[in-house]
């Protein structure tokens, strides 16, 4: 036993032989190329939702992302260059100038207080402007009347109500291209986040409250939509397809839903059945209750507002 321990204690970690720096560098480059290739291969043919946007809002958010990223690269470059150049030049044994007592320089420090302040000021102006121009609550300028879609996040599916067309669908959203869509969003479940990346950014869906999101599709296509906020066990299945299509195709879809034999009636009682926890396939409904969305929202508010006032308020909200 003692002999084993003694032997063991004599083990030294083998020293890695000194490899020429060029070889190390080449190995690193090769590794990087390999990783880049794997990543490229992985992404080949995939839609980069956030960058390959197909709607005005998404496009402007993407442009902003690209601009800010480029700015970040410009800011990061000197940091990386200085980090590695200084590390190399002033490595012990490289016998460069050595000033152990030099502990500050007003001019240098002024530079790196003021340059970041300037850059952040530019970004601040951009932030202020875009926070308003890309505010999800802001209606989009268009000669067309926006399509109203009421969205209810359920455990764990999405209900889309088209009050204008008296229909509703579950886990499928159809919208005409080039016509603004005004989403009015609530939840009858834990908090979710409503997100169709190729059309533009997300907004939370919260029970007893409504949030708004204005989006528009510029091109026909099939876009993925989902919940981006954890809402319980079936959360991963809480996604839907968005079909953007011409107004004619959209109208046809409306007619199809109306004529479809499996289309059921949607009122408060069939709604409560639908709202039970569980995932769902695509379903269609005839909207029987124009007030459904507001009733769902108001059922969380019932104790602070009297019944009559509630219906009065919902009417008012709806006429808006």
């Amino acid at each position, binding site marked *: 036993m003692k002999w084993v321990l003694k032997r063991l204690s004599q083990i030294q970690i083998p020293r890695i032989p000194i490899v020429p720096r060029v070889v190390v560098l080449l190995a690193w480059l090769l590794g990087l190329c390999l990783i880049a290739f794997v990543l490229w291969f992985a992404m080949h043919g995939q*839609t980069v939702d956030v*960058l390959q946007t197909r709607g005005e809002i998404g496009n402007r958010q993407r442009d902003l992302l690209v601009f800010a990223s480029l700015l970040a690269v410009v800011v990061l470059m000197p940091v990386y260059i200085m980090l590695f150049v200084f590390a190399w030049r002033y490595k012990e044994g490289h016998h*460069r100038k050595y000033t152990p007592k030099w502990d*500050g320089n007003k001019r240098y420090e002024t530079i790196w207080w003021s340059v970041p302040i300037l850059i952040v000021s530019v970004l601040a102006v951009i932030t202020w402007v875009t926070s308003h121009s890309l505010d999800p609550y802001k209606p989009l300028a268009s000669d067309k009347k926006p399509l109203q879609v009421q969205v209810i996040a359920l455990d764990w599916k999405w209900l889309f109500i088209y009050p204008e067309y008296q229909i509703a669908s579950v886990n499928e959203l159809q919208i005409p291209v080039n016509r603004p869509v005004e989403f009015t969003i609530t939840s009858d479940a834990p*908090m979710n986040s409503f997100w169709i990346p190729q059309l533009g*950014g997300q907004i939370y869906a919260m029970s007893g409250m409504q949030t708004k999101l204005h989006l528009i599709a510029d091109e026909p296509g099939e876009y993925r939509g989902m919940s*981006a906020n954890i809402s319980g066990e079936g959360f991963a299945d809480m996604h839907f397809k968005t079909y953007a299509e011409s107004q004619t195709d959209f109208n046809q879809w409306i007619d199809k839903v109306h004529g479809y034999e499996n289309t059921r009636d949607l009122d408060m009682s069939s709604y409560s059945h639908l709202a039970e926890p569980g995932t769902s396939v695509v379903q269609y409904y005839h909207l029987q209750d124009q007030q459904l969305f507001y009733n769902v929202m108001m059922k969380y508010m019932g104790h602070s507002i009297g019944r009559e006032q509630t219906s009065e308020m919902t009417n008012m909200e709806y006429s808006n």
Partner: protein
Amino acid sequence: MEFFANLLGRMDLSYFWHGWVQFGAQLTLIGAVVLVIGLLTYFKKWKWLWREWLTTQDAKRIGVMYIIVAVGMLLRGASDALMLRLQQALASGNSEGFISSDHFQQIFTAHGTIMIFFVAMGLMFGLINLVLPLMIGSRDVAFPTLNSTSFYLFLAGVVLTNLSLIYGEFGSAGWLAYPPLSELAYSPGPGIDYWLWSIQIAGVGSLLSGINFLVTILKHRAKGMTLMKMPVFVWSVLGAMILVVFAFPILTGTLFMLSLDRSMGMHFFTSDFGGNPMMYINLIWAWGHPEVYILILPAFGLFGEVVATFSRKRLFGYKSMVWALMAITVLSYTVWLHHFFTMGAGGNVNAFFGIMTMIIAVPTGVKVFNWLFTMYRGKISFASPMWWFMAFVATFALGGATGVLLSIPAIDFQVHNSLFLVAHFHNVIVGGVVFGYFAGLTYWFPKIFGFRLHERLGKAAVTLWTSGFLLAFIPLYILGLLGATRRLDHYDPSLGWQPLFIVSGIGALLIGLGIVVQLAQVVYSIWKRRQLRDTTGDPWDGRTLEWSVPSPAPHYNFARLPIVSTRDAWYEAKHGGNQVFSGEYKDIELPRNTGFGVYVGILSVLFGFGFIWHLWWLVLLSSVALIYVIIRRTYDENITYVIPAADVERLDTRKAAI
């Protein structure tokens, strides 16, 4: 019969069995505990453990205990991470992966909670305990018994979290458990309560530590050490502790309200009956955002010490550094809303918080440039703490840049809650906090244990961590842009995410390997401690006071209290400046060991356990016992002991007047 059933609250045998994967975890955990107990019994070390460690009032030993617990929890948090990565690499399409949705959600909740509260906070308070009193030339913290109590409250949180693995379940609503998901209506089980009481109790410990170190820094500095002569690490801890003192009461209050909702049927944060979940989200981030700065500030500070020491040069722009630290401290209270731009607050509010957030980039950038110019015209020796520094700047800068992107609300709408966000915060927390604390541990290890850590294994760990980090998180940035949201336990194969998740999994494995190498580094260094012995007390040619005492540092820290006249007082003294130690030896009064903290910790576990399982009799009993223990302690008169001046002189190996 019914009476006895009521005594058991909602406890039930079914909470033991959850499935084979959990069974493996339960066995591992129980096995580890049994092994430790067995070893202690076999080697008859219980008395030694109680006298030398558990009841100690010595900040350095408390620091070591913090670090041991934190490293243990790092192993658990990292195993959680590997399970998450494995599930996401497998669960494409028809494959369900190897764990259920609910279990997956418990794992990511546990991963986040453990890594923030029990690893990062543990390492931070551990490091502060190890060196802060030494750095300011003090023999101890201001309130030693409170310090030990803080540790046991932290440990109580750790115990409750791990208990949930053996009996019950953990929260599955994410590490901040947003209501209404975390309310009774959607999460009736004990999981959220385990989460809630673990961090509630640990949080109280953190608050007490915050007060303790704040007072220590303000009242216990060496003679002559004015605020502007404090080492920059001390400044960073001062900033962090100010944040703790103002932020943690918010956490305590918020969690208290949530616990009232859950156990008393109240409606602070429910969706109906006038409750408001948005209020919770605001409150939790009003604590949560300062919290991340609580973690990063000490890392910033200790890098200031590391860079100056290893560049053999004074820290560049000390005043700028101090101003930057204090600016970050203040600004970190004004940015919490950037965690939920997508709640619909409107342009003005979002723009304000976005701009406040990006302003923090200014002082942070200043710090980076000051570190770089500390290296400029230095004589840099690349010991492993310096390697951690290089890895830190290289990764943290990227994380900072993506942070600025996220601070613009219009961009945030498109990446919020996606894996881009996940990549960003791991980028700053791993690259900043974790690399920082590892640098600190390597740097100060010889001061506490008397021998250095093995250098080459340390460098191997840096390499593994850094490359693993890049492989694990660059794919997550890309996945975020592909529209992958966080916390998905399965996804559609047509999305083509699987290869990226696999690459990310390989990265996580590399990080895991890095942790294994670090453990090997510690074991190997203990084995080779004779060769690695630090005989000088000053192995790195240090600059601050902790290097002026022998290694390992004596339990009384300083035989004679130092007198300081400049920054880098020890370095100046070595190079012909003013002496640090002079004059007569005096009696040293030190706190006597006490089990008070241990009792408070045990009673806190019982109290939390009672609340979780609705054992109201246990809640009542433990509260009464807790009050008794506290009152009993106030009657303890004999709480200090004295080392006579003559003994101090005899013990002092550093008589030479420097």
